[in-house]
């Protein structure tokens, strides 16, 4: 019993100490903690946020902006633990849940920590909470441009698309791509394969080869498993259109155009808001118009 009492005293002391921390943190450094489902080097969704945080750090300087990033956290409950720890530590000015699968846990967590600012995406739902920001990408816009350009460039009249699961920005991109291709050239054939996985590189690669066998001379796709499809485009002399992050280096001479997410556009605004005392309640969409989506040229 006495031991328990001592433990409790220690615990209270620790709590008291941690409660001093935010006061310390507020003055100079802006601290961000983020969790993402795949790896920071996936050339896709998770990397887009990681790159954005790096860009902000470069702008503001390392003495002004620091961040921690937990990647590879596809298990939602693991993300829940991380988010709760960061929120309750009081050390972070902004806690980011980078994945639409994290929405439900944020909805539960955010009201418990009204003084902590959260951001999550891709979605537009702030759950009516004034300490939650939501962000999403109008990836159909770049998809439309890629699709239109692809339709004009194809010689065989067939384009192949390798998609993951029909969700969120992946679905938006693919739908936009098909619409763009049809708008530019109504008789073009766009074959879409959803392989029902974000990570199955062997299947994505064979899906790309199947498209080539069916006459496609241009390929596109979204999510991190497309790296194999990019290699196929290169080997078969086909062209590649990408999205989420720039895959120009990997695609080399096959790469035509990439829609790149620039989350820093959103982050800048959120950081300014938080510094001004506004912790959330706003939903952002990155678009071509606001500079959140940028079309980068490949080596082609």
């Amino acid at each position, binding site marked *: 019993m006495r031991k328990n009492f001592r433990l409790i005293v220690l615990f209270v002391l620790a709590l008291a100490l941690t409660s001093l921390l935010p006061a310390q943190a507020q003055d100079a450094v802006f601290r961000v903690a983020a969790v993402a489902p795949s790896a920071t080097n996936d050339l896709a969704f998770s990397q887009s946020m990681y790159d954005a945080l790096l860009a902000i750090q470069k702008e503001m300087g390392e003495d002004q902006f620091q961040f921690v990033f937990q990647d590879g956290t596809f298990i939602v409950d693991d993300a829940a633990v991380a988010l709760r720890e960061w929120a309750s530590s009081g050390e972070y000015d902004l806690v980011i849940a980078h994945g639409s699968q994290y929405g439900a846990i944020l909805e539960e967590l955010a009201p418990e920590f009204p003084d902590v600012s959260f951001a999550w995406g891709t979605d537009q739902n702030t759950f009516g909470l004034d300490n939650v920001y939501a962000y999403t990408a109008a990836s159909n816009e770049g998809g439309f441009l890629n699709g239109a350009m692809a339709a004009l460039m194809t010689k065989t009249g067939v384009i192949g698309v390798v998609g993951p699961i029909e969700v969120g920005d992946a*679905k938006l991109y693919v739908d936009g791509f098909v619409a763009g291709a049809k708008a530019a050239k109504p008789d073009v054939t766009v074959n879409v394969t959803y392989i029902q996985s974000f990570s199955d590189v062997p299947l994505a690669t064979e899906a790309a080869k199947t498209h080539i066998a069916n006459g496609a001379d241009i390929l596109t796709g979204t999510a991190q498993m497309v790296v194999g499809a990019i290699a196929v485009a290169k080997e078969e002399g086909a062209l590649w259109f990408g999205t989420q992050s720039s895959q120009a280096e990997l695609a080399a001479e096959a790469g035509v155009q990439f829609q790149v997410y620039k989350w820093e556009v959103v982050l800048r605004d959120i950081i300014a808001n938080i510094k001004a005392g506004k912790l959330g309640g706003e939903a952002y969409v990155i678009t071509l118009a606001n500079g959140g989506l940028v079309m980068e040229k490949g080596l082609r």
Partner: protein
Amino acid sequence: MNFRPSAVTLVFFKTFANSLLNAWPLLLAIAAAAAAASLLLLALNANPIQAFSSMLQGAFGTTNATAETLVKAIPVLFVAIGICVAFRGGVVNIGGEGQMIAGAVAGVTAALTLGPIITFGPLLIALCLVCGFLAGALYGGLAGFLKAYFNVNEILSTIMLNQVAVQMMNFLLNGPLLDPAELGTNHIPKTARIVQWAELPRLSLSLGDNFELFTRTRLHFGLVLGIILAIVIYVLLWRTTIGYRIRAVGQNERASRYAGINVRRQIVLAMFLAGGIAGLAGVVQVLGLQYRLQTDGSPTGFTGNAGFNGIVAALFGGLNPLGAIPASVVFGGLLVGAQKMQRDLGVSAALITAINGLIVVFVVSSQYYIRQRARRRLAAPTSPAAAAAERPAAAAALEQQA
């Protein structure tokens, strides 16, 4: 609290005490795993001592950490209990993942459709649990049926059925079960939120005003259900004829047949129960934690690998439902603590996965010596983890008969 040690608790403590007595190979294994992990950490410029203390801190360091460890352990425990039944019955069930998904789909469907009709919470929860159990049981029972009557190896069928279940879930979440609110917008494959009275209550203990335990954590009633279930299944396996028959078939199929036991029926029954219990794991995750069913986009669907981790926990627990309780908690702590280590040291998630693998390999390598010592000391008639080893002989007998 009026505490009277029953036969069950006695057995529990006996098992626990024995494992402590024979702990030195285990400690050696943990030390070896720690040494190997330290080398890896040093190679990545991380301080191993800091790493391990942060791991321990993350698993049990605070009330919330302990709560999250238990939260992680709950589905692992359910699956492990089911695995005990299957493996004791001589069926190597790798299908915890798929059975969990089947249970979750049925459970969430029940909660969504019955929720508005049945407003009495406990009844609604019970119905959801029954639906989830039945769905998981049928899915597991299918593999048992194929094994018993069509000679389809269960390792093959359960591995394949796991993938079928993930795709079936994705289909349902993208169509019939899709949250109507997602239709126009983001199209995230998840169901609507279940009604509030279908949620399993959170566990928080308040003793007077000064002492609070697990308040404001995510620890939920599933833990209690899991422990009750472990006791029930322990009694079923070792104190009833049903359990005796299942174990008899697992231990010696031919002898069981001569003794007049319907071997095929026992195989189906073992898989039916194992699947059902794994199905409960799925429902409990939905009703206790997520309040909806949602895919995480990974190849495992939504289970967070609990279906596989349950196998490891069951075997570490000596294929005894009661042993599965501490084994799941330790395994849950390992997983939750590793995440904390990743955050504190900024090391990659990949390192954590590799270290977890090392720990599993080293600890399982020590098990044989622990068993040997235990056997010598107690002259116990059967080794706890022998069921899987006896399986091929049983399979051979089955094929001979066919």
